[in-house]
Structure formats: C-alpha cells, structure tokens
C-alpha cells in the first residue's frame, strides 16, 4: 500500500486529478451516450416529425403526434396500462412479501438454496417460459386436464387470451423482481426489534404494521419500481397470452414501429410514456428519501 503510494505521482494538482477522473469515467460516459442519450435524442427528434406515405420520416416540426397521443383512445390505453401495472405490482407485493420474509428468516444454507430457486427461471428464455404458460392455460392444456380429472368435475376454464391470463403472465414474469429487494430489506431487519416490539406489548399484527412494514418499506418501494416500470411497457405477454385483445401501451407503441410504420407517432407515445415514468420514479424516490431520512 505505502509502496504504491510512494510510486504514484502526488495528486496535488487538481487539473491532473480532474483529467484522471474523466479518463476513468470515459467508458461509462460513452456507454451512457451510446445507449441512453443518443436514442432518447433520436426519439425526441422523431416525435416532432411527420411521415410520408411510405412510412419514411420527414424532418419537419409539428405537434400533431402529441395531439394524437392525447386522443381519448390512447389516453384510455395509457390508463389501462397503468391499471395493469399497478395491479401487477400490488399482487407481486402480496405474493412476494411472505416469500421474501420466509427466505430472509430461513437458516443460512436453506436461504441460499431458496434464493437460487427464485432466480432459476432466468436461466431460460422469457419467451419459452411464456409459451409454457400458454400450454398450461389453453383449453386443452394442463390446468384444464387437472380440473377435469378432479372428482367434482369442474368445467374447463377458458383462461387463455383473457385479461386474467395477461395478469398471470405479468405477475409470473416480474415476481422475482419484487421478492429480491424485499428479501434484501428483510434480511437486514434485526430480529431483536421484533422481540422488542413483542416485549412492549405488540401482538403479531401490530408488530407487522408498526415494525416490519416500515422497516422493509425501502425494499417494497424498490420492488414496486422494478415491477411497475417494465410491466407497464410489456407487449410480448399481452400479445402471446392476451391474444392482442387487450392492447396495452407497449403493444400500441410496438405496433407504430412495425405494422403501422408511423415512427414519429410511436416516438411521441414513447416520449409521453417516458415522462410518465419520470414522474412515477420521482414520486417513489421522494418516498424513499423520506424513509431514509427517517430510518
């Protein structure tokens, strides 16, 4: 350590230090430029353009795309997307919280194995897993086969290509993103705090609401963000499992860039969408800041 310090040049010159810092940051900055700043800029520029009959982008300036984006049809789809994403996040919280608690409180060897299980689905392609769900839910699928074999003979459920199927797909896809951050919070939670609350007369419910929930809120907030944001933009699940009957905003945008060949309008929808994210994120961030200031 000391030898290294002596060998290096003294870092007294601020300009040298600045130059070095920039050099170290360069790859990161290049990455940000290439994958975030440039595409966003292109999207912004496109959103003010028009298209010709062949679907090529014509560089002019117009607000038309934004006007169309706020057409009631699209506003309704935006609303529906937010609804689906909110419901997905809510179901993921309810389903993920007990799992996260169980893993976080398990013995260490067991804990590692359970965490691995949560992550196993990521080892296969997302599309393959979605097709697997289709074979489960379809009319002649696994679920109905099981139902039919039951003694009380439940009729076949026609789940595939319904909103329920879309919800199943979304929750399935994003549940791990809820479990992992909550697990992080639960694992950090000091068991003595729960004992202290019990000691002070709090029954299990009060301990849960007054101690466990407030202390795992950062994990819940992070998980909500991780689930809400991608599920609002999801189009593959709605296409495959919803049969494109309940289009969400992701489908509409994707459609503009593919079949409709209206890139400027797709770009405008994308920008509105990003603005929506930015606001959601900002709110959640404020929430977490408050929490961090608090705890």
């Amino acid at each position, binding site marked *: 350590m000391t030898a290294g310090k002596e060998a290096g040049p003294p870092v007294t010159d601020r300009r040298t230090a600045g130059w070095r810092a920039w050099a170290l940051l360069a790859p990161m900055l290049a990455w940000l430029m290439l994958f975030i700043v440039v595409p966003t800029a292109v999207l912004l520029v496109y959103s003010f353009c028009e298209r010709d009959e062949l679907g090529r982008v014509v560089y002019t300036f117009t607000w038309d795309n934004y006007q169309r984006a706020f057409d009631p049809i699209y506003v309704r789809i935006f609303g529906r997307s937010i609804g689906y994403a909110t419901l997905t996040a809510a179901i993921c919280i309810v389903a993920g919280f007990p799992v996260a608690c169980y893993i976080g409180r398990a013995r260490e060897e067991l804990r590692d194995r359970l965490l691995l299980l949560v992550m196993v689905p990521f080892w296969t392609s997302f599309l393959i897993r979605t097709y697997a769900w289709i074979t489960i839910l379809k009319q002649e699928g696994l679920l109905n086969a099981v139902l039919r074999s039951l003694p009380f003979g439940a009729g076949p459920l026609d789940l595939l290509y319904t909103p329920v199927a879309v919800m199943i797909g979304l929750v399935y896809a994003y549940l791990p993103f809820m479990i992992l951050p909550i697990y992080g919070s639960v694992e950090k939670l000091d068991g003595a*705090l729960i004992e202290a609350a019990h000691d002070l007369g709090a029954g299990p419910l009060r301990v849960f609401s007054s101690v466990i929930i407030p202390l795992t809120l950062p994990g819940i907030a992070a998980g909500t963000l991780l689930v809400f944001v991608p599920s609002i933009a999801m189009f593959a699940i709605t296409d495959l499992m919803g049969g494109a009957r309940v289009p969400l905003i992701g489908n509409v945008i994707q459609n503009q860039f593919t079949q409709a060949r209206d890139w400027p309008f797709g770009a405008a929808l994308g920008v509105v969408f990003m603005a929506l994210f930015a606001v959601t994120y900002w709110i959640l961030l404020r929430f977490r800041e408050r929490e961090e200031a608090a705890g």
Partner: protein
Amino acid sequence: MSAKVELCGVTKRFGAFEAVSEVSLEIAAGEFLTLLGPSGCGKTTLLRLIAGFEQPTSGTIWLGGVEVTHLPPYRRPVNQVFQSYALFPHLSVWENVAFGLRMQRVPAAEVTDRVRQALELVSLAGFDARRPQELSGGQKQRVALARALVCRPQVLLLDEPLSALDAKLRQAMQLELKRLQRQVGITFVYVTHDQEEALTMSDRIAIVNRGRIEQFGSPHEIYHRPATAFAADFIGQANLLDTRLIAADGSGARVRLAGGLELVLRAAAWPAGVETALVSIRPEKVHVSKSKSRAQSTFAEGETNMFEARIEEEVFKGATDHLILATVAGTRLSAVVANESALGEIFHAGDRVFCGLHADDLVVLRVN
C-alpha cells in the same frame, strides 16, 4: 405493582447444548436480583425465558403466582432492556419511548406526560426528535431504559443496561436505578458480569456458571461465605487452599495443607464424612505484621492460626498494598493490607512477617 418470579426446574437446550440446566429460583416481589456470571454462562437465556422469547425445554415459570411458561411475550407483564438496545430505527426517541404505551392504548395526554417524565429520568429531555442512529451508545442505552420503565411493568428485566456508559455516568445511573427501583417497587432482574455492580446494587445475587446457579444469597453472604470455588473466585479474590482433615473435635477441625501447614477451622464448617476439601480465605482477611501480637489482631488465642512467612512480592496500589506470601511450609497466599501510612508498617519483598488467619474467615467450599 411488582410480582414474584419463580423458576421451577427450568432447563433450556439449544440442540445438544444445554444453556440452562435445572434452574430453580424464587425472586421476591420488589426485589433487586442480579444474575452474575461470566460471558456465555446463560444469563441472557435466563432473562429470555422469563420474558417469553424462549420456551423452556422442561420446567415451569411463574409470575406473581400465575404460570406463564407458554404465554407469548406480549401477554406477560414484563419488560426488558435489551443487551443490544433494540431501539426502533424508524422512530424518534420520543416515539420509541411511547411505543409500549401506544400498545397499551394509554390516552394521548397521559402518554405525553409519562414519556416526558421517563426521558427526564434518564436525563434525555430535549432529545425527543432524535433518531436512535444519532445517539451515542450510552444515550441509546438510556432510551432503552426509559422505553421499558415507562410501561411500569411488574417485572423489569435488564440485560447489562449500563455496560456502554463511562464510569461516572455508570455510577450515577447505578444509584438512580437503585433509587428508582425502591421508589416504584418493581421487581428487577438485572444481568451483569461486573461483580462490583452486583455487590452495590443487589438485594440478592445469583451466581450463574455454565447454566447453573452456583450460589444464591445476599451480597454479604456471597462475599463472605462463598459456596463454591467458582463463586469465591468470581467475586473478589480468594486464596483457595487444598486441605485434608487430620483431626476434629468440639472446638475445631484441624486440617493440613499440601506443604504441611496446619490450620484450625470451625468444627461446624467442615462437612461430615469428607476427607479433603477446598478452603477459601479473602486476601484482606490475611492479617500480616512484623510483630506477632499485631498479626494476632483482636482475635482470641485459640481461634487464630499463626505462622511465619516471607514476602515474595509487594505491589503498591495506592490505598492498599498487595502482597504475595510464601510460608515456611511452601504454601503461597495473597494478602491485601491497608497502605503503609495507615498501618505504620512498611513491607518490602524479602521481609519476614507473621500471618494470622481467623478460624471464622476460613470458608470450606462445596464440591460440585
């Protein structure tokens, strides 16, 4: 309000490890009881059993005459000050202290009053809005204390509540706690591994060793009449002497030490039917002087064991002088004498002196 605490044959096993073995203990209502023992001896486990965080493997626990062995912690009229404080990081100091009252649904005005009083009691008025993370170790400890006291439990369990305080604050808090305990009359079960703290504060002390109670008695009894070698050694210092009985009659028991030195003990002190035993004497009970008559002190002739010794080592400790003595027969004893000016005698290594041990001060220890 205070309650009696009883443990009846309580054993707690963690897997194959027995942390608490067959402990039976009766703590009187309003008593200040200290569990004293070395690290890992099972003090915290005993408290956790009383608080309800652990279930005994066998045995029963009673609070105020009611069996609570299987009652959850939130149904027991007991509060604990945790060794690790366990303050809620998402709540302010004020909210932490108010937590227990909120759970008891105490009216808001009363909560305000009691929390304020509790915080004043631990000299933390004005810290209301702070978060636990913004407090020093000692301040956290005091919040933990206030949080438990404010609930006015029938029994208060304290797990080394003063260990993080500096000497001065610690002493102040010791007196404060003791005063408080007398005033509110709550039964205190206090855990410490500081013998001085135990001696100063307790009505009674239970010496815990390897999950067992070695001795249970007043500080005075524990100090002057230690029951086992462990108890003798753990509280204060003790000369432990291996002895063999050579004669016993009505007036006394005559024993011989390995080197040949012979001592006379109270006949009643020697257990019947035993040949050899460990005998303990406190270093300050070894009377040392260059003059035979002064070593004899005020004791009667027949009750004092007199022998000559040489000072091997002398360590000046201010108020006291610590001596290591070697008797002619080769037995080594440590002695503590008041410092030279008080005694009018100066001791140096190599000096020949007389030692006097009174028969009453020689305590025969039980063998476990």
